[in-house]
């Protein structure tokens, strides 16, 4: 069976590199590591990964939410969100509606791997409570 392919969207190089090495070591195919939305969507278009691990952030030009919704809208990816934000912000931004898993930073190797496995075990990606993804940002 072909290993699941994963796209990493994480602006911090060290965190992205750590994840990349961990997932690759575990046996997943890493289709790419992107620091920004543009790079991420390009990679997703090219490789059609099974899962995108998206870090939710504010300080860069385009935030993690935007990246995630872009990916879902274009490629119907499953999205795993890693974040340093408190629960209230996550709730307020509507993350639970589209994320298959939400992993709080900092996380251990086991935590992230378990979440990835759960996400991949789920059915096709949907946005709960909404008939179609574009409706999030009409």
């Amino acid at each position: 069976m072909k290993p699941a392919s994963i796209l990493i969207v994480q602006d911090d190089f060290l965190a992205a590199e750590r994840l990349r090495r961990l997932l690759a070591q575990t046996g997943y195919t890493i289709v790419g590591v992107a620091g920004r939305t543009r790079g991420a969507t390009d990679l997703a278009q090219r490789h059609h990964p099974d899962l995108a691990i998206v870090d939710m952030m504010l300080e860069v030009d385009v935030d993690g939410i935007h990246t995630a919704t872009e990916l879902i809208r274009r490629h119907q990816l499953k999205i795993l969100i890693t974040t340093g934000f408190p629960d209230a912000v996550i709730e307020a931004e509507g993350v639970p509606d589209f994320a298959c898993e939400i992993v709080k930073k900092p996380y251990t190797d086991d935590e992230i791997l378990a979440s990835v496995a759960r996400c991949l075990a789920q059915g096709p990606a949907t946005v709960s409570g909404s008939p179609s993804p574009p409706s999030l940002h009409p």
Partner: protein
Amino acid sequence: MKLSVRLLILVLLAALPVLAIQVNDLLEVREQRKAAIAEQALNLARLAAAQQDQFIESSRYLLAAAAQMPEVQQRDASGCSARMAELRMQFPTVSGIGAVAPDGVQFCSSSGRVAGISLADRPYFQQAARNKTLAISGYIIGRMSGQPHLNFAYPAIDAAGEVRAVVVLAFSLDRLSASLSMAPLPSDATMSLVDGDGVLLARAPPAPEWIGRRVREGPFTQAMRAQREGLMEAAGLDGIERMYGFAPLLASADLFAVVGLPWQPAYRQADRLFWRQILFTVLAFALAALAALVSADLWIRRPIAGLQGAVGRMKQGDLSARASAGRSSSPELRELASDFNDMAGTLERRQAALEASEARFRAVVETAADGIITINAQGVIQSVNPEAERLFGYARDELIGQNVKFLMTSLDAGRHDEYLARYLRTGEARIIGIGREVTGRRKDGSTFPLFLSIGEFSLAGERYFTGIVRDITDRKRAEERQRLLMAEVDHRAKNLLATIQAMVLLTKRDAGSVADFTSTFVGRLHAMGRAHDLLARDKWTGASLHDLIKAEFQAYAAPDDARLRVIGEDARLSARAAQTLSLALHELTTNAAKHGALSVPVGRVEIRSAVNGKELQLTWTETGGPEVQPPAAQGFGSVIVERSIAHELGGAAELLFERSGLRCNIRIPLR
């Protein structure tokens, strides 16, 4: 009613009894005078009657003497007439004397003429002849003279007792009147002789035209006949009011002496006295009235006018008004003025204190940094302060009289009436005494958050509410900023922990020993810390490239170390770029110190910077170090240098392992 009128009425009331007493006195005096006159009239009448009696008595003597004359007894006509003429000469008041035969025919006369006149039908003759006594005629017109007379008849009786003749004595009534007039009488007084038929026989002063006329039948004649003697008040024939006294003669019950005394003169005298008294009384009371008016003016009206003036000025609002009663006014009024002034002083001080307190209170309200709006129980705005005007953008005049609802958003406005009504009905407070955040609406339609606290007070039975409003836009923004900042701090801390965690895990892979791991990890952590310091210094707005490089070098060499050189244009790095570049420079410097140019004293590191358009170009060049061999396997430090800049900054980094020394070209896009 004016004081002067009242005083005049008072004086008049005091004068009235005096005047009444005087009138009473006058009436009494008049009565007394009248009584005195009446008494005098009656006495005079009695006196006159006595005189007349005396006259009649003397006439009787004369007649009795004449009746004894032989010529009469014998009815000797010529002798008788001669004797009668002699007699007549001796009694000038007698107008004639004669004798009549018992048949009534005259045979003798003092005038000498005997025309055979008969007196047989005369009652007085018949009476004398029959009764053989003196008889008096009453008013008769003489048959010879044709003049009014009073005749006396006296019988001449002979020794046998037979009537031989009747002697007649005639008195002219004119002469009788003249003799009456001899008596001294007061002016307008009358003395009369009246017969039993009420016929006037004689009168003094003389009034020939009335002689023989009957006094008007009436009370006078009735009184005469009934009382014989008495008094009568009546108007005389001449029209003058008199008090008539009348008395009958003793000689003849048919003759009356009447004396009339006018009472008007007596009255006039009493009246003169009376009017003089009245005049004095009126003058006295007029003086009293004048004195009362003057003293009332001086002691009451003027001081009171002074008080009134002060009161009037005070009523106009001049609280400095003081009253002066004047030195001439009464002590009571002076005391009143003094009390008034004390009161005015107290009032003025209290007013001043009140005004000062009001001004202080007003100043507090007017200068308050919060908006203050007062409404009544219906929600109508009563007052606003300048801050409230400023907050809502309305002028005071536009607010007062409006319902406070129009300062609210439509949601709150819709509920306000209900809130207010419920509070007034049940006392259930939603905001009053608690305060809460609400949304205000300005004149331009914009809304803003405000904190509203409401106090309640009652004034003159009306309930009012005071709303104190504070614009909390800034506070809300600050709270929002704070909230975002807290979230951001939390987020950054967790990201930092995640980065450090990654750094630990990645460093561990390359580390040969725990000591190696520790020094490498701590070095990297310090590099991150230095970037953090620099960024914090400029409040995370960015950092200078040269400062960043110097800070990194200083961790390995003294500031004046000649082996290190920074050349070229400085650039302003974003916070993100500063953090990324800091770690890359750390890796280059560590490598140079361990294996490269900085591992020997003669080595050199030169960093050249240039800004080319929107791109920063950095060149790291090592010289003078040990000969460089390209590494067999790529270390994690190289990975950081080459890939972190590309990944995080969208730039590029290239490591060139030249024999003379390591070289690194870095390009970073500048924002």
